């Protein structure tokens, strides 16, 4: 039984040391955010922390790079729309 983390309300399995992005891809999830301008789907692109395409909300903090953040059981992951900062919009 591998560990899991919560992704939008369901359990996604991961291996020790695996990143959130790698675990999502392995689970068949290919996109987990939408772009700011035209709400297009995005997931892993460079895979090495350079392109900022793979942004995701981890434990309430938006714009984490899924390809860098290690998966852990206690940090829930949420897909993200736009800047992920709707809370700041006025």
């Amino acid at each position: 039984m591998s560990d899991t983390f919560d992704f939008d309300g369901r359990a996604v399995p991961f291996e020790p040391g695996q990143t959130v992005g790698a675990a999502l891809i392995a689970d068949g999830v290919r996109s987990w955010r939408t772009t700011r301008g035209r709400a297009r789907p995005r997931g892993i692109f460079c895979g090495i922390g350079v392109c900022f395409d793979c942004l995701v909300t981890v434990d309430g903090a938006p714009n984490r790079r899924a390809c860098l953040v290690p998966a852990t059981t206690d940090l829930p992951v949420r897909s993200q729309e736009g800047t992920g900062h709707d809370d700041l919009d006025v």
Partner: protein
Amino acid sequence: MVRLMTVDRLPEVVVIGAGVVGAACAWYAARAGLRVTVVDRGPVAGGTTGAGEGNILVSDKPAGPELELARLSVRCWRDLADAVEGFEYDPKGGLVVAGSAAALDGLRATASGQRERGVTATEVRPDELHEHEPHLADDLAGGMYYPEDAQVQPAAAAARLLRDARAHGAAVRPNVEVTGVLRSRDGLAGVRTSAGDVPAGAVVNAAGTWGGEIAALAGVDVPVLPRRGFVLVTEPLPPGVVRHKVYAAEYVSDVASDDASLQSSPVIESTAAGPVLLGSSRERVGFNRTLSVPALRRIAAHAVRLFPVLAGADVLRAYRGFRPYCPDHLPVIGPDARCPGLYHACGHEGAGVGLAAATGHVVARALTGHPPGTDPTPFLPERFG
């Protein structure tokens, strides 16, 4: 056949530097009907233009020659944004805020001098600040709103102006370094480059922070030196978080300071793409590119002081650039009486983007023998003797 004719026609003007200032000079000269060639030892906007921010400000300039140039430039940029699109021109207005009653007094004094010169400056009471900027700290003493302040994306502006200049017959040659000058009996007759000689009747020195080196090649003294500045780039934030160009009243005295050590005052603006740019720092450390943690820390702390909400924003990266400054903090613009055929357009320090449009206008007017739209005398290179 056509290609030979256009490429092989000798330019009348060679512009050294494909930053925003060289691009504006090339644009105005090409639009005035001159045959222009632009050379740069690197790519377009590879110098300070690609390493700064893009504010076009009248607000930070007290009454004086630079304010007059800035007022002209605000009008020129508006025209450029109509004629050449695609560089994120945004007439967003500037808000200068004061943290203390003394700073507010300073702001009022500056504004009253500016108003006499025709600048619109509206005082904003502390309880009105949030109507302009909802996320601003709520313990500020007041502010001054300048509706004429605007913003562009400087690298895009340089690229678009050069593209349009090419459509009007200009040639743009990146990766060509100027290594010397060509002389005739009457003065300069072009430049020597890494790709061969480029004869031309007039040479425009738009080499920014390296303008002093070009002047030296021509045998004249133009003291342009680097003043380092860092910028922090946040993650993209919603458009309403920071609406105007916002900065602290202390910024104006920092800019005018002759102190070589680190100065820092908050300068904040959003960009069309979403990230918010946090400045500013000023240091005289030559061309030292080392990342300075104290400078970055001060910039971040100052930004959070003005916009507490930024404490929760991630910083994606930092970059630095070297502002081209002259000892008297004025740019060098116009024909060099010491060296006929040589024109300068450099040394704009932290205002080269804002002043680029007027600089291009003034240089093109000089090249074509017409009077410019402002008094060019304070900027002439002879002031260095």
